[in-house]
């Protein structure tokens, strides 16, 4: 209950930000990315953190939401919210098929299968005609109940709502039979099974929940950007970023994935827009014409995945329970 109140208070604060910022699309855009990664990473946490089943293919569910929504809107002019619901259904079907095949097996089969399924889906979408193939899908404009969705604010609130729902689900899980069963599965599958826990059923449940929430993020993202292709919504890189955000923030905790997103998304953006390289030059630490200066301005922008990787290695070595684990015992 206490946690739920904290989430509600923080959400109320976050909801006030757009009106405080005024007209600042760059910052709103960045905040939408932070909220989206926080929601994605929290959703992944339900299967990865609670049940301990590491999915390396969550881009598949994100892409399922994004592609289903965009295809329905562009071909049949369906209401975007109906597109979102259809996206959830498609993501659920993918989750159920994956789960029913691999959750009967022990070991790392799920991690491997999740990559395989995501890649099969990515390659299929790339080669099908109705998905736009390599060109992707572009929408000129999207309306919802006559409202033009060209402004960024609705998506800010949409992502915020999704994050709040995901956190609420996490809080509920921590205080429910299902949540305890998932943690038992993470800790020891034989013990869990001998205590009456149907392993496959509970793993499937948590994957389904995680996939549904992930697909909603995909739907929101696609309508927000109004352009999708496989490299934007189905890439393995996205799956990896979701996991790294959770690991760096703190796997299995409520706030870890949120903290990870708050730290990593702006960091990635700073690298991408070369803020770090530029400020090193401006501060006079590196000369713009020196070999290092030229190298940084050319390459640092592409290095955000490398930086993620380095941070992850440092995290695993020095704080295996993530940033949050440094402050308190994982609960």
């Amino acid at each position, binding site marked *: 209950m206490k946690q739920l109140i904290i989430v509600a208070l923080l959400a109320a604060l976050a909801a006030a930000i757009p009106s405080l910022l005024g007209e600042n699309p760059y910052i709103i855009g960045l905040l939408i990315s932070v909220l989206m990664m926080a929601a994605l990473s929290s959703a992944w946490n339900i299967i990865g953190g609670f049940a301990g089943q590491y999915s390396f293919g969550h881009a598949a569910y994100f892409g399922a939401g994004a592609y289903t929504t965009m295809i329905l809107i562009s071909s049949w002019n369906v209401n975007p919210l109906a597109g979102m619901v259809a996206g959830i259904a498609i993501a659920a079907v993918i989750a159920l098929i994956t789960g029913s095949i691999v959750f009967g097996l022990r070991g790392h089969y799920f991690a491997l299968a999740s990559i395989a399924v995501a890649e099969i889906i990515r390659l299929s979408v790339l080669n099908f005609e109705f998905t736009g193939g390599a060109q992707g899908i572009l929408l000129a404009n999207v309306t919802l109940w006559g409202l033009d969705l060209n402004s960024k604010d609705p998506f800010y609130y949409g992502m915020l709502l999704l994050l709040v729902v995901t956190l609420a689900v996490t809080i509920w899980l921590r205080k429910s039979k299902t949540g305890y069963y998932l943690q038992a599965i993470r800790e020891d599958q034989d013990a869990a099974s*001998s205590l009456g826990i149907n392993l496959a059923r509970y793993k499937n449940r948590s994957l389904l929940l995680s996939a549904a929430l992930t697909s909603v993020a995909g739907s929101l993202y696609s309508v927000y950007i109004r352009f999708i292709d496989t490299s934007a919504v189905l890439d393995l890189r996205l799956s990896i970023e979701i996991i790294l955000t959770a690991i760096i923030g703190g796997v299995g905790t409520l706030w870890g994935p949120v903290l990870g997103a708050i730290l990593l998304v702006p960091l990635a953006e700073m690298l991408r827009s070369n803020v770090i390289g530029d400020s090193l030059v401006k501060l006079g630490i590196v000369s713009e014409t020196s070999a290092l200066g030229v190298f940084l301005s050319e390459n640092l922008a592409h290095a955000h995945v490398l930086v993620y990787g380095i941070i992850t290695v440092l995290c695993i070595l020095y704080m295996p329970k993530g940033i949050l684990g440094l402050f308190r015992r994982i609960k």
Partner: protein
Amino acid sequence: MIEPLLKISHVNKHFGGNIAVSDVSFAVEEQQIFGLIGPNGAGKTTLFNCITGFYPVTSGDVIFDNRKINNLRPDAVCRLGMARTWQRVKPLSSLSVLENVMIGAFSITRSLTEAREKAQEQLTQVGLSDYATQLAGSLSIGLKKKLELARVLATKPKMLLLDEICGGLNHTETDTLLQIIRDVRKQGTTIVFIEHDMKAVTSICDHIVVLNSGVKLAEGTPAEITRNQEVIAAYLGGGYHA
């Protein structure tokens, strides 16, 4: 005539060409404390795994509470009322002692409050209530064994299969545990007991089956078993005196 609670008939378990359990039959009556003994590698744990659904039997039948349970999964077996502990304890390490036992209790209730109450009762029964908030992984081996017991008891089993629950414990710890097991039986639970400690076995069991190399060597009361020449030769050693 009352049917036995558990009936094992002609159970075989082969791993490839390796015969781990060969044509073993016995019956466990309700409210018995039933001992399963034998040297290392005799097939005791394998037989436990076959009974509780962790291994499929190669042939033969396992009948529990008038139901054939050969092909059930372990969780289904547990929900029918047969619970087991592990020779190598399996605590849910990053959860608290109380939460470990609550997970057992969730097999009979959905409610969090009820599960917590039942878990607390169970911790009191085994004498672990002082450790309720500690992480299960931080307990000593003796306390981990007690936790295993509390956790399976929380599932309210009709039958309890204990795999070397006294292994690695000192005399005082063993005595406390044996007393708890006697109490559990008094409350109506049937107990099957794998054990190496002959003193523990003979003091607590009503009936004993001896396995050797996967074959049933002997069966009888503790007094009969300790007098049995074959058992003495195979397991107890020449100098054993009951």
